[in-house]
């Protein structure tokens, strides 16, 4: 499967050129919020008012790609939680008004498939449409789903694939109860080197135009792999195996892009894999840019492709990788690996 174009709304200035020119946005408030663009050029004001954050970020990142790639047939989205702000608003109405007469807007917006549904509606795409909600594997699942759809087509085909996650008070509170976030004040700049418990909450929408056609593509999704609840020593041999199935040795990987989150409890997963399988490679990380959230592997793929394009990403100066392994896990439960390879074509910026 090939990637033709990418787009992201994230806590960095990814909607313009700043991020690929080395800009790094510092967030010190504990929550790493997305920097949202002015949506009015993309979304009519009347619609925008009724959209929750997950839906508008998804439309903001995805709809321009749909417009620029008219051959896109369908939409596949990964989101662990969908529109949680609307979800809690509706929930609060239920309890506060003792199940009285409620307005449906929040309910309709809160369903995780609202993003893929709205993209299909606004982009008039009647083809394959699905939404994966499988926690930190939801984006990985969406990618494989796309691959299966593309493989089954004997004609050239394009799909929009992406991931959306929003921070709301709701998931921030729940995830805080689950001790996912740091209790001390820390900036995203210092996140990865931290060794205390928890990470910093992030959010964003990341979209990809994928195709079964190599022509016009900038990168290839070579393969992917997932495992749940692994034993400590289980991952290293599985990754060697995974690479060898793709006729690669660990030495063939140029860059490791790992989900280290500055979480003293779970970063060992990344560090151990690097030590055991890639002793000659340094770990590069992406969560200082986007924060920690379940579908952050989509942002990692976005960043990997920007690195392949030799853009000057902050802290990656001089790197010119062609083969990148992305690894992300959440709470040590679900682990996902995505193998990406550069193609010769240069990318044009999409925004």
């Amino acid at each position: 499967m090939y990637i033709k174009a990418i787009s992201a709304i994230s806590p960095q200035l990814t909607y313009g050129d700043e991020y690929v020119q080395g800009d790094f946005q510092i967030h010190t408030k504990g929550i790493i919020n997305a920097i949202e663009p002015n949506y009015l050029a993309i979304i009519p004001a009347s619609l925008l008012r009724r959209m929750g954050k997950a839906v508008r970020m998804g439309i903001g990142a995805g709809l321009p790609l749909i417009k620029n790639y008219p051959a896109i047939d369908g939409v596949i989205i990964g989101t662990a939680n969908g529109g949680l702000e609307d979800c809690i608003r509706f929930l609060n109405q239920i309890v506060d008004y003792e199940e009285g007469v409620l307005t449906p807007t929040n309910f309709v917006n809160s369903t995780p498939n609202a993003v893929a549904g709205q993209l299909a509606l606004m982009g008039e795409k009647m083809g394959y449409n699905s939404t994966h909600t499988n926690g930190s594997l939801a984006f990985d699942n969406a990618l494989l789903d796309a691959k299966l759809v593309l493989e089954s087509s004997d004609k050239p085909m394009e799909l929009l694939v992406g991931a959306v996650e929003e921070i709301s008070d709701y998931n921030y509170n729940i995830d805080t109860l689950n001790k996912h976030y740091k209790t001390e004040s820390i900036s995203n700049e210092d996140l990865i080197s931290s060794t205390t418990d928890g990470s910093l909450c992030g959010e964003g929408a990341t979209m990809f135009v994928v195709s079964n056609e190599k022509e016009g593509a900038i990168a290839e999704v070579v393969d992917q792999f997932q495992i749940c609840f692994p034993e400590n020593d289980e991952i290293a041999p599985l990754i060697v195996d995974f690479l060898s199935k793709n006729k690669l040795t660990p030495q063939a990987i140029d860059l490791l892009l790992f989900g280290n989150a500055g979480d003293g409890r779970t970063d060992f997963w990344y560090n151990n894999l690097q030590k055991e399988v890639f002793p000659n490679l340094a770990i590069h990380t992406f969560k200082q840019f986007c924060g920690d959230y379940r579908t952050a592997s989509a942002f990692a793929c976005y960043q990997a492709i920007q690195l392949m394009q030799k853009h000057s990403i902050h802290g990656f100066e001089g790197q010119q990788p062609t083969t990148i392994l992305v690894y992300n896990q959440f709470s040590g439960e679900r682990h996902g690996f995505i193998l990406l390879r550069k193609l010769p074509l240069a990318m044009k910026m999409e925004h």
Partner: protein
Amino acid sequence: MRKVFITGMGSISSLGLTVEEQLKKLRSGQSGIGKVNHFQSVYSESLPFAEINASDEELKAITGFAEKGITRTTLIAIKAFQEAIADSRLTPAQISHTRTAFISSSTVGGMCYTDALYTDANNKGEISEFYSSYEGSNHTLQIVKQFKLKGYTDTINTACSSSANAILLGARLIQSGRADRAIVGGADCLAKFTVNGFNSLRILNEQPCKPFDEHREGLTLGEGAAYLVLEAENVIENKPLYAEVKGFGNANDAFHPSATSDDARGPLKAMRDALSTAGLQPSAIDYINAHGTGTVNNDETESFAFMELFGTAIPAFSSTKGYTGHTLAAAGALEAIISVLSIQNNEIYPNLNFSTPIAGRGLIPVTNLKQGVEIKNVLSNSFGFGGNGTSLIISKVD
């Protein structure tokens, strides 16, 4: 491409705790819709529901899973999962094999205890035992953990077509050679969140739902879980093949967030794609297990789609939601199992509560149990919010 066979089934709904119990009710025409005993809501008295006849405590005893924080969604999922893997006689080694996939689905997921979630999400009091269980995919994670699954896992939420898409994806994984087996389905339980959501859209009927009837006034919410074991033809050893997953189509109506277009373009595309992947003409369909929710919009547009696709030769059809209510994410898998029962037993289970055909459509579903009819190919429809629609074709093994 490898053929994909169904070799095991497990389900729980208001009709019973096992497939066998549900089959008895399907044959005797007894609906699972009525007054609730367990679900607590302002609407518990005023609206009918299709509730599973077991409390959370009873489900814990039945499944043997009683961990703190386990939700009703997870409990009913485990119950149906246990039945499906036992029915297919999968060994622990096969269940944990890296080439066995598990694809589940849910809409309400772990948010089934609305009041506990309210407290935890708003920091409004003592932390509930469910604080780690709210995610839509929590039931999947629990099953992965408890049954030591090591293969591909996924959770889908495409609203009312969720578990139909789980079946579709499982079949594709097997066809493509990425998995040899897939356990596929979904689970959704009654929750204030869903009941109030559908109520705010004014599509809940105060009487048990009347699919395809002129005087239908909305749907009846139900709860259920259903899983099917799919296996590749070349890994099946000496076990009965219940049916084949022969075709599937997934399309988006791209019309409205919560209603189907008048010309049913999405549902029609899903049905046509299903026929085309199955390599079948419309005339090969012997029975349609319709989506048939009982809402004004769905039944009108689904009828229109039948007329467009089949012309005057519309096959026997029924919606079984008059029995089970609308079980949302579980509906696709639950109705796929009912479709398999039709194929196995040469019978069609009736569309309950029907009396008057829809004006201008005139379609009459099967209203009494039909027995002794050979069913070779069933079309099973699932359409939902967000324009999501999926049609499956389940066929008798040649």
